[in-house]
């Protein structure tokens, strides 16, 4: 039997992401309907010290074999190194910081979602394809924000009209929008997760600056699009998944998710769903107690991903497409539609740094 511990954010401000992760994951688990897998779920309240404590609990008391579910990079950094050092498997449903992809990679650690930079790289590639010559880029001043702008610049070939780091948790962007207006930019790239992105988009739409905007999928996810409303329509965003991706697994997933939870799935739900399926595929092939065999089984990625083609690079991070989506309005609901592919079969920049 395999015991899986899910640590994710179920209360407080970031709860919607964790709830989708959990719901996607459990959808696959319940669909498989197996009695040899048990899942325990705990709420990390988005606090690193709580996450560490829960990991300890799951390892010491619940004696789980596999951990998963953490949404945030800083929580992942708190939990993953210690967990893999103790011989557990960690499957990431979302957070995939650079440290864990490069020097800090581990044969027991798999990111099923992406490497954190992927979406930003996709946005950069799209900006280049779209012919933007002078982009204004902004992100919050913290490691993920800095990584995001670095990722964007890796694939963006034009000039920068400006590069700005905002305060983490900032809610008013009047000053930055004024800077954008004055900068002579021809487009804007931003990475502002959660409420920051909602605020930015609403204020941007009301400012009269109508340069094209690009961002990673986070600010255009199903869960928050409704809160942004009209302001988001037409905005291009980069994503590894979309509900209209044309493959069988995805169609089944979207339908099942809607039926069960009566809402559209988000990227977090899709990643949770894929993670569960990957895990199940490996359980069928190898004993979880045999580290090497189980790791090899995981690495085969022998499951039907809702993202279509899916395999693991040498550092256990996905090789997959990064798509460009556009926000549209379908009836009353705001959602995304795929309009192109920014990067094909894309891995990540840290593969070579990983010595496994």
């Amino acid at each position, binding site marked *: 039997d395999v015991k899986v511990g899910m640590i994710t954010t179920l209360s407080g401000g970031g709860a919607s992401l964790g709830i989708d992760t959990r719901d996607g994951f459990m959808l696959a688990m319940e669909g498989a309907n197996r009695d040899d897998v048990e899942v325990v779920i705990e709420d990390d309240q988005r606090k690193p010290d709580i996450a560490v404590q829960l990991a300890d609990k799951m390892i010491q008391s619940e004696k789980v074999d596999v951990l998963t579910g953490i949404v945030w990079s800083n929580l992942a950094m708190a939990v993953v190194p210690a967990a893999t050092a103790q011989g557990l498997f960690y499957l990431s449903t979302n957070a995939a910081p650079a440290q864990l992809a490069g020097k800090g990679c581990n044969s027991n650690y798999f990111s099923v979602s992406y490497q954190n930079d992927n979406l930003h790289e996709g946005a950069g590639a799209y900006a280049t394809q779209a012919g933007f010559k002078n982009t204004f880029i902004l992100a919050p001043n913290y490691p993920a924000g800095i990584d995001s702008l670095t990722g964007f610049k890796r694939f963006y070939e034009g000039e920068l009209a400006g590069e700005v780091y905002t305060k983490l948790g900032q809610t008013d962007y009047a000053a930055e929008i004024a800077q954008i207006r004055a900068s002579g930019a021809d487009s804007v790239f931003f990475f502002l997760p959660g409420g920051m992105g909602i605020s930015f988009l609403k204020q941007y739409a009301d400012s009269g600056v109508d340069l094209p905007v690009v961002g990673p999928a986070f600010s255009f996810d199903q869960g928050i699009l409704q809160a942004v*409303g009209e302001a988001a329509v037409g905005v291009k965003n980069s994503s590894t998944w979309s509900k209209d991706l044309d493959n069988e697994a995805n169609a089944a997933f979207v339908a099942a998710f809607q039926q069960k939870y009566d809402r559209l799935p988000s990227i977090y739900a899709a990643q949770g769903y894929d993670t569960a399926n990957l895990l199940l595929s490996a359980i069928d092939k190898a004993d979880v107690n045999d580290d090497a065999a189980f790791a090899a089984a995981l690495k085969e990625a022998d499951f039907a991903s809702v993202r279509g083609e899916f395999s693991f690079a040498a550092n256990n991070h996905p090789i997959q497409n990064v798509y460009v989506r556009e926000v549209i309005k379908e009836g009353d609901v705001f959602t995304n539609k795929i309009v192109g592919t920014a990067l094909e079969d894309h891995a990540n920049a840290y593969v070579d740094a990983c010595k496994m």
Partner: protein
Amino acid sequence: MSTILIIEQVLNGLQSGVMLFLMAAGLTLIFGVMGLINLAHGSLYMVGAFAAAAVAGATGSFVLALIAALAAAALAGAVIEVAVIRRLYDSDHLDQVLATFALILIFSEGTRWVFGSFPLFLDIPDALSGPVTLPGGIQYPLYRLALIGVGLLVAFGLWLLIERTRIGIQIRAGENDREMIAALGVDISKLYTLVFALGAALAGLAGALVGAIQSVQVGMGEPVLILAFVVIVIGGIGSIKGAFIGALLVGLTDTLVGIFLPEVLKLFMDAAPATSAGSSIASMSIYILMSLVLIWRPSGLFGARA
């Protein structure tokens, strides 16, 4: 950097200051005037925003949404005053801290329970959307100008209430000595319930107004709460004028330091470290401002007491 941009940023700073004042106004009333540390003020702000979003979603009317925000927050305020706060005026600040912290937990998770975990939608009314052109060719969102107007009105109204009416005098007297003012014939309990409801309504109003250009989500009140405390402490507790000046100072500092410090630093160092150092310092700037003000004047700019 052009003069126009500098003017525009100063305007942005002032505007964000006025917006801050709107948030701080209710808190000044409750904290400054009634002497109650109300950590749950941010929750009332959230209640206002959620009530507005719910009503706007159902009716499509922004005016109704504002009314709903005022009413819901005032009601919530009155209820918690009668059920909880009233028993805490005589105890020290610390019990108030714990109780209102507990209220935050209840309000936040209660809201999530009722409205779910996803942010809600609340938009600017059509009549106020889009930018207008100011003299000098500055494009400025009309809604933000409207916010400035409302903020100024609230400031003036509150100042009148506290400094110029008998009720204001009684409220302040009650803060000094509740037992004594009651012994002289003033029904201070009822007065305080009213004041608390008024403060809560102002928080709710701020939540609704600001919610239209920000994200209406659980936990939205907490960062605002800290900022509002910073504002009224800089201005001096108990002073409406102080809160107003404090809000403008904080708004200007926050906006201008964030924009200009990286530019200034670029004169001395490379672009990349200048940007990151600049924005690091910028995120601390209002706290640095507050400590400097307090080190210089230990009871704020307009604080009455030493």
